[in-house]
């Protein structure tokens, strides 16, 4: 391994572990029945939703080569497939991948 790559990996993993570590530290003083726990629960779900929405609407990398309208339609169709298959997670994910790969190879 070259030195600079190794250091970059270590810096990345440290920056990532930091939030997890501080999370456990804070969690030691928080009861699962408390209001602050419920607030953090909301924050976790909303931050995740914000992250996923950003990946779909403002993607970086390969996804940005697909028109945003197509991405949005695929997301909506996949949610419909998710409900039609009684919340089976495997079908909508495979469905979306095949649709998008086909779409991108024909257009």
């Amino acid at each position: 391994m070259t030195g600079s790559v190794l250091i970059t990996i270590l810096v990345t993993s440290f920056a990532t572990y930091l939030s997890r570590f501080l999370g456990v530290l804070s969690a030691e003083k928080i009861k699962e029945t408390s209001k602050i726990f419920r607030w953090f629960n909301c924050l976790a779900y909303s931050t995740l939703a914000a992250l996923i929405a950003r990946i779909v609407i403002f993607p970086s990398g390969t996804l940005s080569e697909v028109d945003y309208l197509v991405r949005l339609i695929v997301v909506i169709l996949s949610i419909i497939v998710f409900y039609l298959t009684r919340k089976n997670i495997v079908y909508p994910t495979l469905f979306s991948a095949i649709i998008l790969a086909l779409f991108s190879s024909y257009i």
Partner: protein
Amino acid sequence: MINTKYFVKGFLSIKGVGSPAIALGASFIAIGALLKNVGFTIQESIFSTFLTYALPGSLVMAESMLIGASLINIFIAVWLVNARLYPMTVSLMPLLMHESQPRWKYYLSCHFIAVSSWLIMKDNYTVIKKKNRIDFWIGIGTATWFVAITSTIIGYVASEYLNKDILIGLAIINPIYFTCMMVGAMKTVQISLSVVLGAILGPMFYFLSSEWSILFGGFVAGTIAYFIGEFNDR
């Protein structure tokens, strides 16, 4: 030390209809291919997934290296994109904490917190007694971590065969998986509002600051959802 029965039960949660294995696999195959293109060796790629195990962080790292960003800038960019792990940890660990369990388990196993493992645990914790939840969680974490590392290797080795169309197909799987899991988790007013508002405000804040949009958008959305939910319950 670790109760094998609950560890195995957690480990096996990657099977079945709610399985994150496909989504995790797809995205880490893409990461493996990306790291190869950035110039990583296979050992470095494995090491990266092994130590970081959070997809957006690895993506930011690879992108930053391509534009030659400094270590400080990489640190800040990765920290910002992965800071969501803080509220995720705070909203998970109190559910797993039990006085009979040693604390090192919590500080070590928090490494396994990533969106997919977190969503499975949130979905299933009620069926496990509190005392055994941490071992169940370590099982989930080990399994998802294992899938991620294996997929990184597959992606690295197979990168020559992955054309643009396949990579686009792989790239959509993860957001679709997360979207479905989140929609499936919308069972209370608070969580439903958190998800819907987060999905609207996150991209809106992107116009103000691309780096801070997830944290700002998530914070504002989650706080509004919390207060509306509390008011609604009264």
